[in-house]
Each structure stands twice: as structure tokens, then as C-alpha cells.
């Protein structure tokens, strides 16, 4: 394969990855890694490096629109980043202590279960009213407003401490396994903190750029971020992320949940296979 064919095909695949990544709040990495490794025979290290770049690109590209349109709850995002960054440090120190295969296996099963419940509950969404919020939400001013088909609606937040705990786990998992933190972020905000679905995915999208940037130092140093692989990935993912951000406002939540369920089921398969290797 010569350079032009490679760059162009990776670019096209990456547009799709950015689109899905921006719509689900998972980042483009879920699709970029298997795409590069299976289809283009890029070795895993360079694929992971390009995936890291794709996560930062999806996050920043889509967030610039989501923040402006009022979907992202930035205060919640920043508050939870404390947990994810602390968790990432703990995860990195546990590397080599915790059995990685076992963690990947359990995480894979959790993802299957979450995919199933996301699929089953896809037609069901109710907002927590601000009065019923966790008392902590008032102190930290975490409730917000969301544009919907019927105008702007106010929403509340539940179980902030439990969400915070799960976010530390998300950080640990990304430190330990390298991927998958976006899935836990969306699930923690959607399921545990009971945020509206689009707030959960766009706030996850807002946060994953920071999580990925934290790992970029070590990847750059080890030379895993190859310019030739990364450039079509980055440009494609950005285009896809902008398209995704354009589509999100009119996309029905049930469809978004369906796509999310499919993607985390695939991620679950990836994890279980990794564990059995």
C-alpha cells in the first residue's frame, strides 16, 4: 500500500470514528484501534498512540460545539476530573500489581451488562427535578439547563459521591487498561447521577480530552505517536467530530443509546478477548 492510499483510507475510516465518538461520548479510540490494527496492519503501539490523538481530537472538536450549545455541564465535568485524574495515578501505580487480565475480563462483563441495560432502557428518559437533587449539588452548583425539543429544561443531579467514586474507578481503568474510560464516565453520569443522557455523553466527551492528554507525555516519549499514522487519523476524526456535533441536537436519545449499547458491547468483546490472550 502506498502513502496516498493509506492516508486516504485511514482518513475515511477516521471520519466515521470521530462521528461515533462524538455522538456517544466515548471518543474515537474505540473504533480507531481495531480499524488500524485489523484493517491496516499497524502495530498495536502505534495504533494506541493514534487512538490517543483521536480521543483528544474528538473531545476538543466536539466540545467546542457542545459547550456553546449548552449540552455540556462543565462544572460537573471539572468536578469529576478530580476523581478521574486521581484514579489514573492510582491505576498507573497498580500496573503490575493488579492482575491486568482479570481486570479486563471483569470490565468486559460489566460492559456487556451495561450494553444490555442501555438497550433495554433506550425509550425511557426522565429528568431529575432540581428540588430532588443530591443536597451536595446545591453547594457545588451542579444542576443545569439543557436544550430539548420542547425548549430549555432545568435538571438536577443524584448520588454525587457515588458518581465521584465510579469516576475514580474510570480513571484507574484507563490508567491500567489504556482504554475504556469513556464508557464508565457515561454510565456513571447517566445511571448513577441520573443526568439527562445528552448531558452525560457530552460531559464525558468534554472530560476524555483531559484524561487522554495526561497519558500523552509517556506516549510521545516512547515514540508511539507516529506522525504518518496520526495525521490522517487526526484530520478525519476532527471532521467526524464536527459532523457528530451538528447531528447531536436533533438525534433522538433512543437512537443514541442504541449506538452506545452496540459500541460498548464491542468494547466488551475487545476486553474479554484481551483477557483470554
Amino acid at each position: 500500500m502506498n502513502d496516498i492510499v493509506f492516508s486516504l483510507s485511514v482518513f475515511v475510516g477516521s471520519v466515521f470514528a470521530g462521528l461515533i465518538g462524538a455522538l456517544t461520548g466515548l471518543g474515537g479510540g474505540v473504533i480507531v484501534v481495531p480499524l488500524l490494527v485489523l484493517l491496516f496492519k499497524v502495530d498495536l503501539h502505534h495504533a494506541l498512540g493514534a487512538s490517543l490523538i483521536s480521543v483528544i481530537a474528538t473531545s476538543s472538536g466536539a466540545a467546542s460545539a457542545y459547550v456553546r450549545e449548552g449540552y455540556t455541564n462543565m462544572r460537573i465535568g471539572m468536578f469529576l476530573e478530580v476523581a478521574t485524574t486521581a484514579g489514573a495515578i492510582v491505576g498507573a501505580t497498580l500496573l503490575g500489581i493488579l492482575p491486568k487480565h482479570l481486570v479486563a475480563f471483569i470490565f468486559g462483563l460489566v460492559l456487556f451488562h451495561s450494553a444490555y441495560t442501555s438497550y433495554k432502557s433506550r425509550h425511557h428518559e426522565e429528568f431529575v427535578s432540581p428540588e430532588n437533587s443530591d443536597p451536595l449539588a446545591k453547594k457545588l452548583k451542579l444542576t443545569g439547563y439543557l436544550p430539548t425539543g420542547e425548549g430549555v429544561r432545568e435538571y438536577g443531579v443524584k448520588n454525587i459521591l457515588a458518581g465521584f467514586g465510579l469516576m475514580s474507578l474510570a480513571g484507574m481503568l484507563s490508567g491500567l487498561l489504556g482504554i475504556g474510560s469513556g464508557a464508565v464516565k457515561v454510565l456513571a453520569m447517566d445511571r448513577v447521577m441520573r443526568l439527562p443522557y445528552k448531558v452525560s455523553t457530552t460531559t464525558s466527551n468534554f472530560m476524555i480530552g483531559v484524561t487522554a492528554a495526561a497519558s500523552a507525555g509517556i506516549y510521545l516519549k516512547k515514540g508511539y505517536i507516529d506522525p504518518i499514522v496520526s495525521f490522517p487519523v487526526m484530520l478525519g476524526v476532527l471532521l467526524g467530530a464536527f459532523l457528530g456535533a451538528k447531528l447531536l441536537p436533533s438525534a433522538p436519545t433512543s437512537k443514541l443509546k442504541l449506538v452506545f449499547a452496540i459500541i460498548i458491547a464491542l468494547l466488551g468483546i475487545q476486553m474479554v478477548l484481551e483477557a483470554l490472550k
Partner: protein
Amino acid sequence: MTRMEILISMTLRTGVIVSSLLVLSGGLWYILKHLGTPLEVGAVNSSGSNAISLIKAGILVLVFTPIARVALSILLFLKERDWLFVLITLWVLVVLLFSLYGPW
């Protein structure tokens, strides 16, 4: 839309546009120079051609975009005298910089 939302959105957009322009020009330059040669992933990392340097610069700008967003939000929370969130964002920035320049 709050001032904070506008400024943070603008920061992210600027970072993304600057980095993609750098990466796009470097990438096109590289492709034009290597028309028809076979692909070698990983081999170019050490050879520092101008095209590759442009791509690398773009990637660095992209990596620093979320970091700039965190740094900016510290300033914005300072201005609002929201001390708890000043601490929160400051912590995130410290951890980010630590893991970027950390002991690897």
C-alpha cells in the same frame, strides 16, 4: 450562554483549528514528496524532515489544547471568586502537568 462557555469553546476551537492546519500542511507536503513510495510506519520518527516537523508541531498543539482549557478555567473561576472550583481546576492542572512531564 455564559462568558465562561464562550471563552472555553473559543479556546478549544482555536486549538483544534491551529493544530489541524499545521497537521494538514505537513501531511500534504509529506504525501507530495513521497508520491508512489511504499509505506513505512514507525521508520520516519527519527528522520526529521520539515513535513514531519509540521505534523509533530500540530500534534503538540492538539495535546496542549485541553490543558489550555483547564488553565483558562482556573483564571475564570478566580475572577468569579469561586474558590472551591479554583482548587478543583488547579488540582487537575497539576496532575496533568505531572503526568505529562512525570518520571517516565
